[in-house]
């Protein structure tokens, strides 16, 4: 494949390890785009590395026999732990050099990245640029700028109880961390956590998603080429490789994906008391009030649905809630925004990602073709299995018990639920699992306040969609079924740090009250001290002097 470009062959020795793992891993994945995989697996043979060749040769001809097993994962972790214990990753210089390398890598390989994303998802270039490349770049830039500040111990107040003393909170790296990423934003959702992990001074294993194989393999190659191979490693693969990784002891696991696998990851982490960050999804609702600038609201909904990886985004709009009498107007505006943006025949538009693979394509078709649902289509509905495309589709008043209202849609279908009073929508949202995001379009201040106060979700945007993730001063993460823990900006640094409490005392300030034997006088004094009553303290002190 043309995609296997010169970069790899220029640095065969530097990236052999991770590529080997990847090449093998792919064999175990789904059957989708089989020819592609064969290509990928066979190219490594030309790499003059015994390690690599062994791994590949033994499996190329066979069915599903992952060479990357628990033993190999253990060796990998061991190596990284050695690096971590040497203190290498802890230095400011190392962190900066690695972040700079990511920045450089993204600058130099922009075209390849866009190409891989196109291959995996037909992702439009501007979308790829904005949501993948730029996200990573700005995360890097911010971390490079702020890192010194983030790393600085934070002074903490001390109280009378330990007087005289001083205290600080020291951020220390957790150790060796595992990042398991996903396929919908396969580049940024892989590297954004890596940036946090590096900034915090950890050794990192990244397991990109096998469902976006072009990006996965590119990541492996680029990280092999640009990053410190003794501390930042990519392991490609699917279930078998991930299981092998999950059997190891990590100091943190950061997982982006679905709730089902999230549970498996957390259960595996429990065995080693490993803390987890789980970035999951959910059904993100958008409430649309009738007093809004309908053109802008519609455009922003379109932007948060079909312009956002064609709905395949964890914070994409999943469904809309609006007032019954407003629904026709809203539909009209949405349709005209869709047509304005994607043209009269959206199926022909190159501006939308395709559905990732045939599995998800049929999953979506199943949602769409359910009996009580298919008749509710008011716009769109066209599909093309060969191109894995489904047109932007709007459905009105689908029943609550339909599949499409029970599971996360993660695709270009947009149901609109109507309610009598918009206020009812809060309870409706809260009856479901807490989503990763909730959106409200309204000009009513009271409504906004109530929305923020009453609706439980990972994050929210008022009068827009998805933009909350571009603000690094806001934590990005779910709650309940949409996940736990958060990242972005300094929160990423914190997610991969332990906040170590440090209290400094001198040998002065010694009070005998603290020690046994506990005489009645001492008890009186301590109680007075602790109740903070100055008068009593004086009395007790006096009492103590003649104790």
């Amino acid at each position, binding site marked *: 494949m043309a995609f296997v470009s010169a970069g790899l062959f220029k640095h065969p020795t530097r990236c052999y390890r991770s590529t080997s793992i990847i090449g093998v891993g792919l064999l175990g994945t789904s059957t989708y785009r089989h020819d592609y995989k064969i290509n990928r697996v066979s190219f490594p043979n030309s790499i003059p590395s015994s390690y690599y060749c062994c791994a590949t040769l033994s499996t190329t001809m066979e069915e599903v026999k992952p060479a990357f097993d628990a033993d190999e994962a253990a060796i990998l972790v061991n190596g990284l732990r050695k690096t971590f214990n040497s203190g290498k990753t802890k230095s400011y210089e190392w962190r900066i050099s690695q972040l700079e390398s990511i920045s450089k890598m993204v600058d130099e390989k922009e075209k390849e990245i866009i190409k891989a994303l196109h291959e995996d998802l037909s992702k439009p270039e501007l979308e790829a640029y904005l949501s993948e490349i730029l996200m990573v770049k700005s995360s890097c830039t911010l971390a490079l700028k702020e890192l010194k500040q983030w790393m600085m111990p934070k002074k903490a107040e001390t109280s009378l109880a330990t007087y005289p003393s001083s205290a600080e909170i020291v951020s220390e790296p957790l150790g060796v961390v595992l990042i398991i990423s996903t396929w919908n934003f396969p580049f940024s959702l892989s590297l954004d956590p890596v940036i946090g992990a590096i900034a915090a001074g950890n050794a990192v294993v990244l397991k990109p998603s096998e469902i976006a194989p072009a990006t996965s393999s590119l990541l492996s190659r680029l990280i092999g080429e640009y990053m410190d191979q003794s501390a930042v490693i990519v392991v490609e693969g699917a279930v078998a490789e991930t299981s092998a990784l999950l059997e190891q002891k990590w100091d943190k696991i950061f997982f982006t994906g679905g709730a089902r696998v999230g549970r498996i990851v957390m259960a595996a982490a429990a065995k080693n008391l490993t803390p987890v960050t789980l970035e999951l999804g959910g059904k993100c609702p958008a409430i649309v009030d009738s007093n809004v600038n309908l053109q802008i609201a519609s*455009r922003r909904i379109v932007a948060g649905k079909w312009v956002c990886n064609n709905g395949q985004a964890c914070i994409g709009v999943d469904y809309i809630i609006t007032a019954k009498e407003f629904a026709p107007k809203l539909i009209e505006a949405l349709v005209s925004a869709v047509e304005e943006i994607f043209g009269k025949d959206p199926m022909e538009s190159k501006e939308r990602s395709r559905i990732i693979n045939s599995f998800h394509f049929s999953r979506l078709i199943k949602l769409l073709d359910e009996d009580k649902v298919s008749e509710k289509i008011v716009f769109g509905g066209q599909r093309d299995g060969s191109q894995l495309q489904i047109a932007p589709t709007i459905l009105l008043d689908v029943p609550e018990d339909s599949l499409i209202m029970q599971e996360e849609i993660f695709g270009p279908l947009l149901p609109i639920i109507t309610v009598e009073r918009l206020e009812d929508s809060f309870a409706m949202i809260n009856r479901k699992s807490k989503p990763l995001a909730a959106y409200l379009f309204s000009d009513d201040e009271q409504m906004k306040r109530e929305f923020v106060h009453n609706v439980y979700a990972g994050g929210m945007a008022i009068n827009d969609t998805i933009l*909350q993730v571009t603000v690094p001063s806001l934590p990005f993460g779910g709650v309940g079924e949409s996940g736990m823990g958060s990242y972005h900006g300094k929160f990423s640094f914190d997610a991969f740090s332990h906040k170590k409490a440090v209290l400094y005392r001198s040998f002065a300030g010694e009070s005998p009250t603290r020690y046994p034997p506990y005489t009645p006088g001492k008890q009186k004094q301590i109680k007075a001290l602790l109740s903070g009553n100055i008068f009593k303290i004086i009395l007790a002190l006096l009492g103590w002097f003649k104790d």
Partner: protein
Amino acid sequence: MGIEVEKKAGFDTESAKEVVKELRASFVAGKTKTYEWRRTQLTAMLKMMDENEPQIVAALTDDLSKPELESSIYEIAMLKNSCKLALKEMKHWMMPKKAKTSLTSFPSSAEIVSDPLGVVLIISAWNYPFLLSLDPVVGAIAAGNAIVLKPSEISPSTASLLAKLVKKYLDCSCIKVVEGAVPETTALLEQKWDKIMYTGNGRIARIVMAAAAKHLTPVVLELGGKSPVIVDSGINLQVATRRIIAGKWGCNNGQACISPDYIITTKDYALELVDSFKCELERFYGKNPLESKDLSRIVNSNHFARLLKLLDEDKVSSKIVYGGERDETNLKIAPTILLDVPQDSLIMNEEIFGPLLPIIMIDKVEDSFDLINYSGAKPLAAYLFTNNKKLKEKFVEKVSAGGLVVNDTTVHLAEPSLPFGGVGESGMGAYHGKFSFDTFSHKKAVLYRSFAGDAAVRYPPYTAGKLRLMRALLGGSIMGIIRALLGWSKP
């Protein structure tokens, strides 16, 4: 009413489900979310402690023969401080925190809103059965949650007192105590919670977290570990010794998760240190420490036997340089110091959690850092006594632990400005002060925009001009932006 059902031996999954259901209804009704409710509950808790101090002290005596002063300070006063701090700061804590916004979402404003998580489970421990039960409850209330507290069955008097007092003073429709042991805890763990906070040991913590994983419930695990004390030479030895004693035997007779577990010192300083211990220990606890009223007893015969097993191991018992006396009927073990026990002994491989204190000797004090980090299990606390500034810096840089104290032991616990929690084997998550509030809150990111500031560049069709503009905008180059804008206006 609920309490009666819960107290029956037959507290099973069904009863647990009922409890959660009732609490969830209260939570969904929004009852716990108001500032008023939170304030009332915390005030009631303060009142409960003021009015029942003798009962609390008596229960602690019953469970642990805990000296009154220790109970007053570490259990009651600490908790009162928590309540008072929360009452004072809660309004401030609850306030949404403004966040800066960037060019990408211009014009906009942003804030971080602290939402309660919902219905939370707090499983507590027996060593500070009052404090470790209610301190997390303070955080959970402050953050606006409905709560089930499961106190430890190993300190039954305190557990039943807690059940009685909580029912009497706090809002029963939102805060419940479930007493019980393994079956009750198991029944509770099968339910879906919005947070589980567990204080105890690593073995049970794994079970708790695995149970939590089924419902994607976040956990705080407050565990323990072998917390070391490094003692450098050239220090004020008397003060250092006293502070170690206060953190070891003065903290529930060593049965505290942040108690010094063992000491590391240099070969040439060890004897001096041992002498100082002998002298101070005798001053504090008298010639016959088994008789002292100022030492808690060992909580039960299981733990008594466990400790004796550590002490009576062949290669260990010969190392006793002070103490070693035991009184099985009263479950007392004297403060015991062991010098130079082998690294492969039991006592050096599990958390001691009792009045035994081994001293490990090394050649150079700097070697202690590697010794601590060697096991890979990060302790909940680590302590260093020194006057050497360089050594302090190295200690803070190199030793990984939940928290550190230089020139004292255990007192970091009393600083609400410091997060209290472990890392690795010593746990995850932290609490105390505002950290308690945060632990039981979800930080909800909220971005506000108006309908102004809508740029066509954001939407397809993606012309070359738009792409140029976007790159320039986001690259932050003013010239680039101008050029792109010009170019874009004539695509």
